[in-house]
């Protein structure tokens, strides 16, 4: 009897948890290629910074990958795999030029880490090879996703509640929509350039 009660209780707790961890899914249209969708900051709520580093490589005169979404507080390792010197810098974060930074230059095989403590869009550049570019989208919450080729996305484990969700795409205007998450929630975005 005790055993049945324990199983029942566990199931109820699990169901309760699932019910509070919703999913935002949808599609970003109007643009092609990868977009990033993220939940804007939740007032009064903070999230622990991830400990895992993300790597952006410089290979064949390109940043690889071209677009990376990370949670605020994430450290990104910038690796140079080319046999030419590269540089990494950004002019601003979401237009705030005070947050611009130049990481300098380093040769093949070496990397430099930078912790992105400020949310926003970071347009990476190399001052040696002006054609090189990449984007780091620093999400203020751990709730973000990159779209697939068709523009579809899915953000999991979002607690039920009301949020502002923003869709970003390279070269398009950001679009933010209010989304009320209750379980499996749909949110579509149409971006314009």
């Amino acid at each position, binding site marked *: 009897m005790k055993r049945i009660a324990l199983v029942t209780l566990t199931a109820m707790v699990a169901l309760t948890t699932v019910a509070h961890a919703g999913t935002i899914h949808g599609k970003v249209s109007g643009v092609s290629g990868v977009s990033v969708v993220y939940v804007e900051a939740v007032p009064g709520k903070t999230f622990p910074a991830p400990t895992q580093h993300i790597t952006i490589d410089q290979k*064949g*005169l390109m940043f690889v990958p071209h677009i990376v979404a990370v949670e605020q507080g994430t450290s990104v390792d910038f690796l140079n795999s*080319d*046999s*030419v*010197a590269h540089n990494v810098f950004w002019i601003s974060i979401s237009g705030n030029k005070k947050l611009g930074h*130049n990481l300098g230059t*380093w040769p093949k095989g070496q990397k430099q880490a930078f912790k992105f403590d400020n949310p926003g869009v970071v347009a990476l550049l190399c001052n040696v090879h002006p054609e090189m570019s990449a984007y780091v989208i620093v999400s203020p919450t751990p709730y973000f996703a990159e779209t697939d080729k068709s523009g579809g996305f899915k953000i999991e484990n979002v607690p039920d509640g009301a949020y502002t969700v923003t869709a970003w795409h390279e070269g398009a205007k950001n679009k933010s929509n209010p989304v009320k998450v209750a379980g499996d929630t749909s949110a579509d975005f149409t971006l314009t350039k």
Partner: protein
Amino acid sequence: MSKRRHISNKGIVSLVVATFVLLLFPTSGYAIPAFSRQYGTSCTTCHLDFPKLNDFGKAFKDAGFKFPKDDESFLKVPPIMLGAPAQAELWPHTVFPGTIPGLPPIGLRYNTFYQQVNSNRDNFNRVLPLDSVGNFIPKSDFQPGLFSIFTAGNFGSGISFWVDDDISVAGANSNGGLGDGYLKFNDIGRLLRMPMLKLPENLLNLRVGRFELDLPVSQARTWNLSGWDILSQANIGVQNGVSPLENVNNTFTMAQAAHGLELSGGHATQGYHYSITALNQNTSGATSGSPLGVGPQNAVSFASDSNFKDLYGRFVYRWNLEHDLASRDGVQAAGTTGPHDHTYLALGTLYFYGRSVQRISGVLPDGVTPAVLTAREPFYRVGGDFNFNYRTFNLFGLYLAGHDHNLVPVTTEGETAPSSFISSRAATFSGGLLEADYLALPWMMAIMRWDQVKSTADRVKFIEYDPAAPPGSAFFSPSSATRNRFTPGVQFLIHANIKASFEYQMRPKQIVYDPATGLALTKPFRTNAAITGLEWIY
């Protein structure tokens, strides 16, 4: 009126045309869009202000138009294999495998100009009779420029190539269209590399075809609107009664394309660099026909006018002055904000030896039998140069002296024509260039140049040498032995492949004389010109 005082309309027209060709059709320069396409990178990876190379561009060129290391990892368009690499093991029983670029390595370039000449431009019309129509130069003028096609790349096995051609058929160093066209075997010293010898990399390269000599600065690929005067200086002797006769008519200039082969080694970005070139002798500027069908099949002429091959040698040593050893030895110096050109000092020297051929109608020693007399006049050009760079400031200069042995035809008593030559005073010139380039912004370069040429011919024209004899030429001929030209300029990169250039040429001083009286009609003046150019490559 003496003959030498007579200024013919035909002569003036020739001078005007020649001068305008020099002024309005600036020397050709190239950046390589084909490389941008193949590597998916910007022009500015290799160029500061195209076609001026940065250190990486120099290393790219040194390596045979390849990235100095791991070239294949940068290619966005893989080369086409002309044989599997494993075929190399079968050689000599198979054709050695090579590659061709995956994209046709073609680039195109066009430029257009506008010039404004100051009010002194028509001063020479004063010497004409009042009812004569002179050669009026417009105050302003729009001019088309070059339309060039150029290809370059490598064929694998360290073999690189370059061909450029001016489709519009104009421009210095184009010689009727073709600019350079050569094949270069890079680092053939590696074939001699044995463990016990430990030969360094890039010890020996071989270049064959038609190419600009290994000059301190490239006239064919200059970034200025006008070329450097000293590199375009021929040595034409004086043939009038003012000075001893100079039977020198050497049309050779350092800037003209050479036909021959070049051995070279070292690097342009660090340490030593040398080159030794054997090239066709052609000092008359003429080519010979091939009526007997001699020579390569379908050849219609010979580029040489002599059996002798001229020789050219250059040696330069460059010290990179970075404190940090790794930075000093790198292709580019590494700074806190990004790679940049090294701070460096390079010192170099050059020497050219040739024999100028003068052929005239004469007689044999019997004084009667007609014969062609040939004077082979040794000549040399010798010079020294420096190049100093501090970040975005570049100062460089060249001093060059020319000396042509002068063999004067002699007609002795009783002879109807010359039968021999005697040595006389040499025809010489000297001069140089000094230029400062400052890259104020990545897209804006300020330039200040000084060109100087001092030649025998100019000295004879100099009024003080023979006050009674006014200069025999008009437009743009100097009024003194020395031609000085100051040329400030500025260039803007609108995009990495589009450039707007401006330069103001403060040309040498001139004086207009009355051809009848020899009296000066004007005070010394300069026919200055402002030139604006637009060019784009794609």
